[in-house]
């Protein structure tokens, strides 16, 4: 390979990227003149979810949930016709953040919902604040997004990373002591640490003992043998693991293959046994106990109705991801309903604190002062039912006292 053309091409690429950067800046200034929409006219709502990358499966469920809400309400939110503009979040901030900037500057939406990856949400949240457009996060769990420094434009229908783990840790600490302590496992990235910190804080505060803690490289770990061998060597009496998607399938199957299933109980936040993951784990998942904000097994009229409608369209049971996006639709519906006349981002932000309770398939919930859901966390266990496995609801662990979490 001769060097000349390559360096020339590289220089050209650098030039193109820097020009694109300038352009972005110009568009962002422009968007400070707020986008508005009059009643009777069409409201433009953005929806951000990954179509590709490791979180594509969660993104698919979120799209399904959001669209199901719209379809069940004649495509209208707060009495207004809605034009949903969907963008691909991609695998991370390098694709997600530019897509969101386009949504704000070119498509001029009055509100947006979605986002799986916390890094995308953290990278884009200032753009929403600058553009005065409310963002309803439907998955991304980074604690800081609804922390003490939150903004009136950033809301969340899903969870803070610590939430489910606090509930599980508190519950486990009240059970007979785990002989040998609990071994903690998660992928090495921000969410992995925040999830385990939640469990650790509540479990040790209740007198529980931690046997060990390991973080596996994120996105490149397919073989969990080294970690499972360490669990065995530590003499731990239980394992608490935060894994999702393909990681959760590999982890749970290998947990059985290496002979830990049946000897060392496996616990974790609900992502460990959620949706397609549960189906792919098959018999290896049997008995795993998790804490989550939803299970299709919840026996309430609202949920039975929701599950029936969801399965009729998508031929698969709904997941927490789907419900969180469904509720983002409900939140926007309630907020738009409180606005007379033209809809603006700041008008919506002013209406959001007043919407009160959301009657969701996961049970009723409302926003806390920090704009995170004040919701119930359920204790679930994987059980065989018919041909497959379900997350049977064992107990209601009650609401998480949100403001106490970091």
């Amino acid at each position, binding site marked *: *390979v001769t060097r000349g053309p390559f360096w020339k091409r590289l220089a050209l690429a650098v030039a193109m990227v820097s020009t694109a950067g300038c352009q972005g800046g110009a568009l962002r200034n422009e968007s400070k003149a707020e986008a508005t929409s009059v009643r009777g006219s069409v409201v433009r709502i953005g929806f951000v979810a990954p179509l590709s990358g490791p979180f594509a499966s969660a993104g698919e469920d979120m799209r399904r949930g959001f669209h199901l809400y719209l379809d069940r309400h004649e495509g209208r939110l707060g009495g207004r016709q809605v034009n949903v503009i969907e963008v691909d979040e991609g695998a991370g901030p390098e694709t997600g953040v530019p897509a969101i900037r386009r949504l704000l500057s070119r498509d001029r939406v009055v509100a947006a919902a979605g986002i799986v990856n916390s890094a995308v949400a953290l990278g884009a949240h200032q753009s929403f604040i600058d553009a005065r457009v409310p963002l309803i996060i439907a998955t991304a769990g980074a604690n800081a997004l609804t922390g003490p420094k939150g903004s009136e434009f950033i809301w969340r229908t899903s969870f803070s990373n610590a939430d489910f783990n606090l509930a599980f840790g508190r519950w486990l600490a009240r059970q007979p002591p785990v002989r040998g302590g609990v071994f903690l496992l998660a992928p090495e990235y921000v969410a992995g640490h925040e999830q385990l910190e939640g469990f650790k804080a509540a479990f040790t505060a209740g007198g529980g003992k931690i046997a060990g803690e390991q973080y596996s490289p994120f996105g490149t770990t397919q073989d969990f043998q080294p970690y499972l061998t360490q669990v065995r060597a530590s003499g731990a009496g239980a394992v608490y693991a935060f894994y999702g998607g393909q990681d959760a399938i590999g982890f749970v199957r290998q947990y059985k293959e290496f002979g830990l299933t049946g000897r060392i109980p496996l616990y974790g936040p609900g992502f460990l046994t959620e949706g397609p993951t549960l189906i792919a784990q098959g018999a290896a998942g049997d008995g795993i106990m998790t804490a989550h904000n939803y299970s299709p097994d919840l026996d309430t009229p609202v949920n039975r109705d929701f599950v029936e409608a969801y399965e009729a369209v998508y031929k698969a049971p709904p997941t927490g991801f789907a419900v969180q996006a469904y509720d983002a639709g409900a939140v926007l519906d309630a907020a738009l309903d409180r606005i007379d006349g033209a809809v603006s981002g700041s008008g919506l932000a002013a209406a959001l604190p007043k919407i009160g309770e959301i009657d969701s398939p996961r049970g009723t919930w409302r926003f806390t002062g920090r704009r995170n859901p004040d919701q119930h966390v359920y204790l679930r266990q994987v059980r065989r039912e018919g041909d497959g496995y379900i997350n049977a609801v064992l107990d209601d662990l009650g609401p998480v006292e949100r403001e106490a979490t970091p």
Partner: protein
Amino acid sequence: MIGWLSDNLVSILNGVALGCLLFALAVGLSLVFGILDVLNLAHGSLFVAGAYAAWRLADDGTIGGFLLAVVVAAGIGGAGGLALTVATRPLAGRGHLDQALLTLGIALVVTELVQTWFGRDPHGVLPPLSGSLDIGGGYPIYRLALIGIGVAVAFAVDCTVERTKVGALVRATVCDPDMVAALGVNTRLVRTGAFTIGGALAAVAGVLGAPLLGANPHLDTQVLLLALVVVVIGGLGSVRGALLGALLIGQVQSLGIALAPRQAPFLLFGVMALVLVVRPAGLLGSRAVAA
């Protein structure tokens, strides 16, 4: 020493099993690079094709289904290799950057097609041999079988390349294609054959790896990364180098993580950097990485 060995027996054994899988994955990439001088970034897509064949045909956990998946995957992989030969031929002599762009583009298209046909959900595949042996508290039988299969594949490929007439032609084409052509050998046939077999091996590796790695649309980038590391460490175009590199990376990913879990994210590339500093052409390679 004995105590240390028995403590880490499972990790060492598992490293060998992973190494055997990595060899089946990487040897095709290495051969194609050595013989055709094509940097095939769509190699991972062929692996993914094998993984999905395993999911569709072998998830009942029977040996019959698994063998069927191997045969189907070999066919798909071979056809894929053939198609890639045709696609990359016009780029001959235009350098690795153009080849990398083309094959990366093909890989992206394949990922999108897989998502369209099979959906975005990840899937698991049951191993054809279930159960585990009582080594260090339990070791899956299928992983032991992988060691046997890996050794057999390595032996077959090595014998073919080193001891048969076809192998001699292949080696000669690697060294000096113009001279081989001048001797009246159809080098185009040699190249096409190498790409076809390399593709078939990658897809079969996808079936073999499915009980460990499952099937999802984004598996291609994960395994391509590992295959590139193995090939670079072993030396481009060398079969024995690929075997050595695969076994080394297998141990790094298993014993290495067990001994130094906190350094796990850096181990893989740390070892690669170390090998490249000491031997820039890879462990058994004869030429430096040029790109």
